[in-house]
């Protein structure tokens, strides 16, 4: 079966790409999915990532993020995906509906290559139990908002070049 991905639900900042890369390969322009219910935070993370030569798709909640990834409830998940649409997922922790932690769990439960995609949790609150919970569930990293350009540079170096 072919695994051609049609890029849907993209925000203005991201362009459609026909390239299919392995999740952790050193790609020129990594594709990042940023999930946050807050408009300002979405705008900031998007620009931070664009300034670090990333392609960005933003989602305002977990459900839309899963839909974009092809993991939505009403989507056909029986195909064994060989590639992932994104190289990295950055999600806010505190979101109404599905929290970033729940989104993380959902992604890590995947039997496909999706579960290998690094997930970074960001939060405005420094709560050690929350941080540990996320790291134990498989989050690559936990970072405090608001993110700085140096945070994103560090993220890029650590996660994209392994």
């Amino acid at each position, binding site marked *: 079966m072919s695994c051609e991905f049609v890029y849907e639900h993209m925000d203005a900042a991201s362009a459609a790409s026909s390239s299919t890369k392995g999740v952790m390969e050193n790609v020129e322009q990594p594709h990042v999915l940023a999930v946050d*219910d*807050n*408009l*300002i*935070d979405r*705008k*900031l993370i998007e*620009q*931070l990532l*664009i*300034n670090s030569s990333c392609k960005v798709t933003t989602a305002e909640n977990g459900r839309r993020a899963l839909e974009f990834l092809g993991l939505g409830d009403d989507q056909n998940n029986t195909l064994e995906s060989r590639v992932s649409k994104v190289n990295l997922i950055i999600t806010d922790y*505190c979101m*109404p509906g599905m929290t970033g932690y729940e989104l993380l769990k959902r992604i890590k439960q995947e039997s496909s290559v999706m579960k290998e995609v690094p997930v970074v949790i960001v939060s*405005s609150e420094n709560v050690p139990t929350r941080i540990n919970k996320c790291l134990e569930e498989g989050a690559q990293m936990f970072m405090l*908002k*608001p993110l*700085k*350009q140096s945070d994103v540079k560090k993220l890029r170096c650590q996660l994209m070049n392994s």
Partner: protein
Amino acid sequence: MVGTDLRQQLNNYIQSMRDQGILDSQFQSVQALKTEENPHFVLETITGFCSDADNGIAQMTRYLEGPVVDFTNLTGLSHFLRGSSSSIGGVRMALACRDLRRASEANNKQGCIEGMARLKHEYNSLKEGLNNISQIERQLIGNAQRGRQ
């Protein structure tokens, strides 16, 4: 020379807002995200923030003034606006949001009424400052575009 004066004017204005504690260094981090490809970034961020804050505060007022106070939604919205104001560097407003959230989590109606009044006051100071910054920013963008002919 006009361009330099305008930029200096902007920096001085931002510094005065920092001195008053209305803004913190995060605002300059937001400014630093502006690029040649995206010259309107700061303006758009300010506009988006004020829109969210106007709507959010109006909604929170309704939650507080209803026959039964909707503490759950009040808590959620104060958390949301705390995030926005913190991300744009509006530190005093962020603190007001934090305190309002605490009062709401404790189902403390009087605390929420006082907290809401303080939040509105802080937002008005911040909004005025951001509007003034936007005006100078617009002139700077206009000058830059003209200069590029």
